[in-house]
């Protein structure tokens, strides 16, 4: 016999709640599905009225995303002969020829380098600081923690002016190193905050035992504490990575060429005669889908990060 509980909702309540939530979820995910669908449309299908849900899928958007094209003249066509590859054929159909690769791949790899670089640096610095805050008597500890948190309240544009000047005099403007340092600093406050929470949960007795066994502090830290904090470190890392991946304000102000990341680049994709929406959607799809998959696969570990540590296990 199952015990009756007054707090357990009835079957009817569950059905009603479930239906409402599913309806909301479907509406909320529609714009995201639309991005993916648009990336496989031809430019004319993308701007059709009424909006098309059934269409002939094409990779034209992706080809346009990765290449720059020029309008083909009679002479070009004669010199080049028949199109050789499938992407040549797609471009040729609209009377264009491929002039060269676009900058998308470059911008995308910049996003990867800066994202992963800043995450690694942030985790190394953040774990050390969080451990010290968690285990030792650091003078002015509360003030330091408060100071670390308050750095998040500044609008990025407000600090961007002096950072712009500082980076310019140090030669860090528009460099990977500069952006990695900047994103590390922006993420560090939250990383220390989250990691301290995780390390606080590890019983101190383990380290005491290790110290009695003759470990040094350092050994106790990386042989005892680090393995136990791994889940916490991983979820903090994912959070740092997603922030660096998505960041726009600093990227648009401090980078323009070599170190520009994808978020400021994707909106600037313009086709010939009006915005090339399938190409924009293709860029957005490649940029957003990894994060969506990440979120769904790692959902259990992410929740604490996205709620700034307010949600505890």
């Amino acid at each position: 016999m199952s015990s009756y509980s007054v707090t357990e909702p009835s079957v009817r309540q569950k059905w009603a709640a479930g239906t409402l939530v599913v309806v909301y979820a479907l509406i909320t995910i529609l714009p995201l599905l639309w991005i993916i669908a648009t990336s496989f449309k031809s430019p004319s299908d993308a701007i059709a009225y009424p909006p098309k849900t059934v269409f002939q899928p094409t990779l034209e958007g992706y080809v346009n995303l990765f290449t720059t094209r020029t309008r083909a003249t009679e002479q070009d066509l004669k010199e080049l002969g028949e199109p050789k590859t499938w992407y040549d054929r797609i471009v040729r159909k609209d009377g264009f020829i491929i002039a060269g690769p676009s900058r998308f791949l470059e911008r995308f790899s910049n996003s990867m380098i800066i994202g992963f670089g800043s995450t690694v640096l942030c985790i190394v610095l953040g774990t050390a600081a969080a451990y010290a805050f968690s285990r030792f008597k650091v003078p002015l500890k509360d003030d330091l923690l408060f100071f670390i948190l308050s750095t998040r309240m500044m609008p990025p544009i407000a600090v961007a002016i002096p950072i712009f000047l500082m980076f310019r005099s140090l030669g860090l403007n528009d460099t990977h190193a500069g952006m990695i340092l900047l994103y590390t600093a922006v993420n560090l406050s939250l990383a220390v905050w989250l990691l301290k929470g995780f390390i606080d949960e590890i019983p101190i007795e383990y380290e005491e035992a290790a110290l009695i066994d003759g470990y040094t502090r350092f050994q106790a830290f990386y042989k005892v504490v680090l393995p136990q904090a791994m889940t916490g470190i991983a979820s903090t890392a994912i959070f740092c990575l997603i922030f660096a991946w998505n960041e726009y304000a600093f990227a648009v102000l401090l980078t323009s060429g070599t170190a520009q990341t994808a978020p400021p680049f994707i909106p600037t994709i313009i086709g010939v005669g009006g915005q090339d929406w399938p190409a924009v959607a293709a860029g957005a799809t490649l940029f957003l889908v990894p994060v969506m998959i990440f979120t769904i696969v790692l959902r259990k570990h992410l929740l604490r990060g996205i709620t700034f540590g307010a949600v505890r296990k």
Partner: protein
Amino acid sequence: MLDSSAGRAVGETPPVVSKSVSKRRQGVSDRAIAWLFVAPSIFLLLAVNIFPLIWTVRLSFTNFRVNRPNAEVQFVGLKNYISVLTDGDIWQTMQATAHFLIWTIVLQVLIGFALAYLINKKFRGNDLWTTIIVLPMMLSPAVVGNFWTFLYQPQIGLFNYAVGYLTGTDPSAFSMIGDVSLAPWAIVIVDTWMWTPFVMLICLAGLRSIPSSIYEAAECDRASKWRQFWTITIPMVLPFLMLAVLFRGIENFKMFDLVVQLTGGGPGSITELTSINLKREAFEKWRTGYASAYAVILFVTVFGLASIYVKALNKVKQR
């Protein structure tokens, strides 16, 4: 989260390793290790966060312009501050920000709490659907904001089509981002779509923290469900809800990426929020000194409002 009580919210610090044990450890002293571990982080934050802030304060008293590096820099006292505070445009910007801030918070709190309440009914598969609802907030606001301009296109945009389909209006008759009366709502809608899940998650944490024994006791006292909702659920979730409002408030006061991509502050300057306005002053008009004063005023405002709010939050928590 802004004062020392925040440390307690995240968890009590475990006791420092007892004396007898620390005496036996070899190598570097604990004190040295503590500093070694904290120093790099503090150094980086000082260099990239605090030093620029101090520089901003210094610049705010000068007439420096980034695009005229050779011009003589003069100290002008409080002149920049006075011209910021007496500038009519800034008050219009503040109004736009207030409209955005108030409506996004109201909508996100209402929808977010309702969703959390429904999800807490623990229907089958609630975990997966929660994740799907969370998706928008994990994505790049600039990239998503840019794509929303496509959804908002008159006639061909999906949003206009859906509104036309549901209300019978002509989808090409209105432009969410081109119309002065609609643009402020266009940014509220996208921000609500994107960030409601955040409020939802925090509310959900609050709802799950209520022990079921309280409801059982209320049931024994024959309190109605309605009464239980208002005397147990709401007061117990309130601190969480207030925390969510604090985070959303700070974030939306800083709002830049999403709105700059959606409307660029337009049409005219009807959706020009403070950050966009500040960017225009600093990086388009290159009035560095003036923009610095503006930044300092904004920072002091956020900091002041947040501190007052946290005091209120702590009072609610102690109840």
